[in-house]
């Protein structure tokens, strides 16, 4: 692949979604969107490389937490608001929790992490609580 090709030849989103490493991941669509250049989900080779380098074992915690933040920020406003948290929760449990349970869990999460009480998680707060979650590095890891 020539240097130009590596940033221009793109794999479409539906092919990427069926990749064995991403097939079962509830966030696969969002992951592809985050790592692709134009936010459509079609990835060039450079983007593909970026993605797996972030998910590898050697990526430092800062990078992983930055990209985790981007992935969970579904509406792209640089904050994890209630809607983002709700979407994440529904993806994690496949919609099986009831509405008031969802609301309660999100309240708890915000209570634990929102330091300035504005109802949203900014990146600083997110990074701060991530540093206290020791399992994050082991689970945010795709082995290839």
């Amino acid at each position, binding site marked *: 692949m020539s240097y130009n090709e590596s940033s221009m030849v793109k794999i479409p989103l539906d092919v990427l979604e069926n990749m064995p490493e991403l097939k*079962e991941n*509830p966030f696969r669509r969002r992951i592809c969107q985050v790592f692709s250049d134009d936010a459509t989900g079609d990835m060039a080779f450079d983007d593909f490389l970026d993605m797996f380098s972030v998910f590898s074992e050697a990526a*430092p915690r800062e990078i992983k937490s930055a990209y985790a933040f981007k992935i969970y920020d579904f509406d792209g406003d640089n904050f994890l608001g209630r809607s983002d948290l709700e979407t994440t929760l529904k993806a994690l449990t496949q919609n099986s929790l009831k509405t008031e349970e969802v609301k309660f869990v999100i309240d708890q999460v915000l209570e634990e*992490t929102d330091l300035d009480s504005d109802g949203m998680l900014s990146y600083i707060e997110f990074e701060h609580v991530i540093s206290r979650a020791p399992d994050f590095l082991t689970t945010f890891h795709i082995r290839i």
Partner: protein
Amino acid sequence: MSNLDVSDVSGIKSETAFHKSGSSTDLNPMSNEIFPSMSQFSAASDEFKTIRATNYFRGYDWSMAELLQKLPSRQLENVADLAARTLLRKKSLKPHRMTLRLSREDSLEDDIMGSLDQDLQSATDLSGYLDSAVRTFPTTLSKKRNIKHSILVKVKKPERGLPLLKYRLNKVSKYFMLKWRQFNRLLDLWRSHLLIIEGSFGTSVVSYFIFLKWVLLINVPVFLFTFTLLVIPALLYSWYGSQKLEDDVSFSFLDLFTGCGYLENSIMYYGFYTNQTMELVPGHSYEMKYVYLFTCAGYYILCLIILGYSYLRSYRIYYIEAGGPTINCYFNIFVSGWDYGITSNEASQLKHKSLYNEFKENLYSHHKKKSFRDKDELTKLWLIRTLTWLLVIVMLTLSGYITYFVSTELSITNKLAEESKSYSTLKTLAMPIVLSSIQQLFPLVFSFLELYEEYSSPKKQLYVHMFRAMAFKGTMLAVLVYFWFAVASSNIECWETFVGEEIYRLVIVDLIFVLGYSFFMEFMRKICSQRWEWIKKAEFAIAQHTLELIYSQSLCWLGFFFAPLLPLVVIMKLVLIFYVKRFSLMNNCTPSVKSCRDSRTHTIFVGYLFIFFLLCCIAVGYSIVLIKPSNVCGPYQNYSTIYEAINTDMISRWRNDSPAFNEISQVVNSPGFVAGVLIFMFMVLYYTRTISISHRAMVEQLQLQLISEGKDKKFLMNLLNQVKIRGHKQGILHPGPVLQKALADYSGPATASDAHGGKVFIRMVADSILGSPLPTGRSSPSQQY
């Protein structure tokens, strides 16, 4: 993202201790993290544009600087800045961390250039620094490459002399490191197996296999080290030298299990190694007794270094950085709940279900409101727990007694009867079989008891169970060690070989039991589950298997001194166990619904490994220093203790040879010196502890900082609201004493440290607003700048 172009403000970063320490987040309050969404603050941006516009003509953003200084979050920093000037600045090359700057990637380059120290201008240092700095940026690889390239071209490359040499060496070494890393990936042991396991079962199960691989990788290099230094010379000497060999005993298959017979006088055990001076290369003598001891010492020291390092690293990650017991249970499920390595449908369904269960459990326990058990229940519970612990202790002593009894009755008499060639295989294997069966059966009793004990969380129950199982193993090994050193050493002629044989048998029987467990518990259960519906497939018992690994490794360490080839046996055993378990797992086991967050348990496993290693070292050390070696075999015949061999022969020879060494050794042996070393070590300990306490205090300060950054928003919002209100009240914003008075009356945020400063500041802002007369209350947004 932000209409507010405040990139100019970044130049005002104050160089406080927070920045230099390299552990802080970026404390630039005017970055776009402050303003939640632009729709909310479009008016604010207009106002600020006004302020900026008016000052644009003045040529500098003094009001911005003032604004920054008055923010609540900065107050803490001003206090800290004062203190920081008295602190010792750590001059490290660690770059300060960049937080997420989604819209400011083009300014990253300037940030790096700005934060470089002056003496990093040489290309060699710079590229190394850049590598570590650029690694933490959350941008794409191509952008990072561009940034690094654009910075490096600005720096002059060295022309000649030493810097040029360093530069070239650096490049060459980087090239070779890259090639080495590429090669290393090919060597990655069992990578495809681990992939398959992780895909189907998740990270907690694969952690057992990674632990196995790690233990194997510890064993291989240390074994090679001792093999070349110890075993090969002994072999060569026995073939070519003048060592008298025993009569040939024929090899039978059972010898592999019992370790006796053919293997007894082979290279396997201590008894083979000669105490004569070997002359392999004419002219140079190779004293086996020194070699043996020092190689063993080297083996243990190497293992100590590796284990100590990994335990400390694990402890740091999972205990210190995580801040001990985790309090953010909901958030942790959120962010580390989904296992990104799962690739099979069955596992992912199970994972979804287990996450759902976890949330439900937390909700339930939250609503249950931590039942304060009434006094009756509490006392009953404590009674039950005391009883079970008493029972455990009784079982411990029972197992110790059984071990001792079997050893004295069967092992020794069997060994002594061996002289008349009337030993039976079963009797030799009796002790290991009894030991291993106790280790398998007694934990089942605990599991039964634990149903009554009702610990508050399943994690705690697991830890208690693990502790009891390891206590059993430890006790039985301790009783055995006592038996060997006290009883066997005085009754048996070549007792070290006997000990080596015993340990070898323990290892082999342990292997058989592990394979048997795999066969019966996992394979048969699968067959039964296919036949009868009510029997379920087995789940992979990670904790139990890891503890077995730890036990077998500690046997290896204990037995190494008496049987130098034991690590080879253990290596082969580990490889066999890996393949058996892996295939048994994939075919016979079902993934478990319980999600086992294994970060802390991993630390505990490494901790157990380390503790057992230390205990083995103590046992072996005891035998070296205090027990009389046997007279008929081994390199230490006719010495009173092994330590004496070193002392009398080697050290006294050195002492006689050089008086300087004599002096030094006398100083080193004196109590004053030892006390001095101890005191020094305590001081280092105290120093590191003080540093850790101060770091903890720093972390708390930074937390407060984060909270007060949030208050910045409210401060600014209030300020702008007030200015707008006052301006609207007047209709038009025209200079006048009324507005000044109104603004002077404004009571800013009630931070005590800033009450007076706040009013001064308000006045200055008012001045700046009133500085250029505006036609309307709202600024004209069309002002471009």
